[in-house]
């Protein structure tokens, strides 16, 4: 049998990573030059890229003889989604992971000293893990014994720009978290610093992970038709977990950079973040409807578990042998507050981890309310803490005064809000929002520079995200049983909906029924909404998709989804009024921009020095 060129490149990439791992070990022993390691890494990158390009070529050539291409594309699929179909399934995603990792290895080990050599070995072993999966159980180049004339088709729900970009962003974040892990272990082994070397990789990985999570949430909001953006689904949760521990780590390194300690905590966070990205890769790409049968069905599960166990064990052994480097220095007020924020991030992580892993451990799962009961109070404490923490670089007495000022502002706005709306929780939320905002203004007003712009953006983002989540979770109004014939109107809350008519559009491999619904408030037209039902010409079962329409106003969204149309022309709709959801998007974007700006500022600072 002829070997597939893509598979051949995978084998060559495996050989390159193996030789890089061995040569970096020999480099430490002094028997080879660093140049050889560099060349091996470059080859590993090239072969991984070639393998990826071969898979991409099969998609573009619509070679349905390749099983993976058959399952994720069809002849009607537009070019852009044909490209994104490469990472729509498990095999292609793992290949993307490998490709990203090969780039990170290439870039992060440039320095060529003993720490990068050790880190290089570790990262190559992780790469070999993915090589192993790709060569065995997740081989994307498996061929069918005949060539179907048409593909099974990409899931219609994935045919959106957000879902095309979501996996590349998420997997970049996952692969990037390997760098802090490998350098933390390697540098600790040699009693050197790992944070200056990996800070930017951490920030980049964290930023892209955040971007991926945001794209997923935005996609869920505009695609799934339940008026929400976060369902505490195992897949969503699994990507949030490493983001939370990485957020904690970003704060922890602020203390360590000033040589004040927290080394042990940061080391642990780097290791746990890596463990969680491996767990997330498994949960996201293991293909299980309810996680309950994950281990029985998926042999790969044990491979992932083994990688997590071995890397944790190895990191633990290194840490125990180098206990002396973890000495603590006396922490100041700001460091203490940062510690508390790390504690909150950690408790948050534990909560989500417990909820996500429950189905794997016992025959049960937890409801959304479990997460909300715990995460809302934790998030609230975090936001309050933020308002204090950003001022804590000052003298204790000034901090105290600043907090009093913020508290007065917060209470005043809370009372005003209560007087206007009579909503207790909303007023409390507004009070906390103003308190933290006042803290942020006092904390940063006099010391704005490029490095801090990132932190300001991210913190402002978190405050906005808080108020957005609060508004959209607690005060959403939903009207789920709306039936209208053409020309009829229905009153929902303060709004009147009127079904003007339908339109049918046929073409591009799909058939759409579009409803025209006018929305009136106080007798005035707010807008015409166009919810759709799209039926794709596919063999797949899930070829009918309800497409929602949203009118975004500054303080709330009007959100409509069409459930179906009867033969008599009566259509059923769900209508939601989602308050402050735009704050969720703006807040998330600010957090991501904050990460990006901080990474850029760090890069500039490094170049200057």
């Amino acid at each position, binding site marked *: 049998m002829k070997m597939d060129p893509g598979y051949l490149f995978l084998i060559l990439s495996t050989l390159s990573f193996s030789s890089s791992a061995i040569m970096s070990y020999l480099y430490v022993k002094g028997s080879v030059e660093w140049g050889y390691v560099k060349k091996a890494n470059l080859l590993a990158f090239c072969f991984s890229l070639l393998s990826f390009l071969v898979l991409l070529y099969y998609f573009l050539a619509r070679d349905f003889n390749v099983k993976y291409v058959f399952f994720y594309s069809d002849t009607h699929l537009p070019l852009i989604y044909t490209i994104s179909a490469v990472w729509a399934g498990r095999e292609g995603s793992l290949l993307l992971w490998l490709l990203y990792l090969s780039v990170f290895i290439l870039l992060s080990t440039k320095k060529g000293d003993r720490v990068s050599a050790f880190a290089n070995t570790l990262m190559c072993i992780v790469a070999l893990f993915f090589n192993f999966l790709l060569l065995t159980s997740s081989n994307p180049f498996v061929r*069918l014994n005949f060539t179907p004339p048409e593909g099974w088709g990409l899931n219609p729900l994935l045919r959106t720009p957000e879902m095309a970009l979501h996996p590349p962003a998420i997997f970049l974040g996952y692969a990037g978290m390997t760098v802090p892990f490998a350098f933390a272990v390697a540098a600790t082994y040699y009693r050197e610093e790992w944070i200056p070397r990996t800070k930017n990789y951490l920030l980049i990985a964290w930023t892209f992970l955040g971007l991926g999570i945001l794209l997923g949430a935005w996609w869920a909001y505009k*695609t799934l038709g339940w008026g929400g953006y976060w369902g505490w689904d195992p897949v969503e949760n699994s990507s949030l977990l490493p983001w939370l521990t990485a957020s904690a780590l970003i704060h922890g390194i602020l203390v360590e950079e000033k040589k004040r300690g927290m080394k042990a905590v940061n080391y642990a966070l780097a290791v746990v973040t890596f463990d969680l990205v491996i767990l997330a890769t498994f949960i996201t790409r293991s293909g*299980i*409807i309810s996680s309950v049968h994950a281990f029985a069905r998926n042999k790969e599960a044990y491979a992932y578990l083994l990688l997590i166990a071995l890397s944790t064990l190895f990191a633990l052994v290194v840490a125990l042998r180098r206990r002396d480097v973890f000495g603590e220095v006396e922490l100041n007020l700001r460091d203490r507050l940062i510690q508390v924020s790390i504690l909150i991030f950690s408790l948050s992580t534990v909560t989500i981890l417990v909820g996500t892993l429950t189905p794997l451990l*016992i025959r049960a*799962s937890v409801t959304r309310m479990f997460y909300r009961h715990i995460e809302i109070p934790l998030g609230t404490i975090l936001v309050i803490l933020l308002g204090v923490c950003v001022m804590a670089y000052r003298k204790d007495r000034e901090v105290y005064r600043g907090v009093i000022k913020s508290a007065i502002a917060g209470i005043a706005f809370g009372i005003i809000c209560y007087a206007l709306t009579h909503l207790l929780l909303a007023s409390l939320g507004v009070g906390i929002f103003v308190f933290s905002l006042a803290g942020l203004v006092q904390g940063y007003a006099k010391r704005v520079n490029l490095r801090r712009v990132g932190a300001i953006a991210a913190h402002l983002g978190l405050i906005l995200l808080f108020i957005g989540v609060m508004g959209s979770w607690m005060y959403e109004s939903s009207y789920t*049983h709306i039936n209208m014939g053409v020309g009829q109107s229905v009153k929902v809350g303060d709004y009147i909906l009127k079904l003007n008519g339908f339109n049918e559009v046929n073409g591009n491999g799909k058939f759409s029924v579009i409803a025209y619904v006018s929305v009136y408030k106080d007798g005035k037209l707010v807008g015409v909404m166009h919810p759709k039902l799209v039926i794709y010409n596919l063999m797949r079962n899930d070829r009918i998709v309800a497409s929602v329409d949203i009118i975004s106003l500054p303080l709330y969204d009007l959100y409509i989804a069409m459930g179906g149309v009867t033969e008599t022309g009566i259509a059923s*709709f*769900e209508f939601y009024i989602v308050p402050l959801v735009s704050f969720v998007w703006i807040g998330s974007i600010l957090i991501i921009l904050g990460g990006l700006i901080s990474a850029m500022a760090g890069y500039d600072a490094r170049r200057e020095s």
Partner: protein
Amino acid sequence: MKKVSIIVGVAVIVFGIVLATSFKSELCPYVTVSYVVSKGRVNNVQVNGTIVPRSTKILPNNTLMFNLSDGRTQMRVIYHGILSHYQEGIPAVVVGSYYGGIFHAREVLLKCPSKYKVMEENYSTKKVVKG
């Protein structure tokens, strides 16, 4: 230093208690269709099964009725609301309570688009060759 550790310790213990309490009250066990039907009345459970083809009835007010099967037993499920990618013949998890011979679903979870294996298992290469 000691005082801080005590405060943090107490906070973590309180958190642990809250977590355990919330966990217990929000836990929703997985059971089979056969179990639910044999019990006759079950509260707050999740049932895994396949939506039986040609069993769907669409009622007014966005209400959906269908049969869920575990291969041995079937039960009638009623759900109010829109399911964006509902189809017969696909696996589903229904969350809710069973009484009066009908499962009242609070939530219906259909195969998530990012989960692929189920589909591959149902339509393995062999089946494709046959038909």
